[in-house]
């Protein structure tokens, strides 16, 4: 495959009002020579690197803090991965977790936009032994 071709995943954060269908239609209307495929989390786009970059920049403008993207190793519709061909989908647990966290990251992006300095959150600590003993006593007296 041509090394100038890039495949990108575009994710819509769970809090966004956008739908994969709307983004796919928007990309089609841009008229850039790239392929688009709707997915459950957003869209997959594939084409020459500069076209993909230009398209991503345009898509981001629709909802800058709720649209995220990363590149993908496997080409679009690859038989080894595409579900239409019963391909396996290792790594989806990670995508799902990070997709769910996008609404949290969005809050961070808003914070950065406003130039706020958030207070340092308390570090999660181990439960003290006495508290653990109390819990054990409560559950199995």
């Amino acid at each position, binding site marked *: 495959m041509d090394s100038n071709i890039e495949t990108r995943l575009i994710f819509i954060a769970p809090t966004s009002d956008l739908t994969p269908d709307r983004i796919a239609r928007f990309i089609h209307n841009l008229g850039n020579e790239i392929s688009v495929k709707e997915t459950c989390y957003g869209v997959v786009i594939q084409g020459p690197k500069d076209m993909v970059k230009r398209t991503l920049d345009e898509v981001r403008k629709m909802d800058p803090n709720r649209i995220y993207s990363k590149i993908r*190793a496997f080409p679009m519709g690859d038989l080894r991965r595409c579900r239409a061909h019963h391909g396996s989908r290792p790594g989806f647990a990670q995508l799902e977790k990070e997709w769910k966290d996008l609404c949290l990251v969005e809050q961070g992006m808003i914070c950065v936009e406003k130039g706020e300095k958030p207070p340092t959150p308390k570090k999660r600590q181990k439960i003290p032994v006495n508290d653990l003993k109390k819990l054990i006593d409560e559950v199995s007296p």
Partner: protein
Amino acid sequence: MKIFLMPPNSLILFDLVERFGHEPLSLMKALRDRVTSNEIEAPPLNVTLDDVKMGLKYAGIEIPSGIRGRLAIYGPLIDQAEAAIFMEDAPYSFGCVGCQRTNELAKLLVRKRKVPILSIDYPANEEDARDMVVRVKEFLEGLK
């Protein structure tokens, strides 16, 4: 600057690094060449003889082959890294023990290179997330 990510295929880190004007060194880009290469018969399950030799540069012969194979891909990325961001406390579903051990070894190799490193946790709530994004931004801006 080229930033090494951990997890190396993280969507959140890849996007943030790109947004703040740096080049993420991702696993996806490294794998892309392999899965689209004609040299490998059934990618990504096979490695070439060269990969096995390259893996030895990053992990000893006594290290399990699965970890050495992964390091053959991670290693060149680590060599190029000018800074790194580690996102810790990932859920167990992110990978097997082999992946975890590879990540531990990769983090050690990055630390040995003495490049600037930012260690953060996966955000559990909005407060954590705000702190995380602001720290990533400050870290990346400080590299320029």
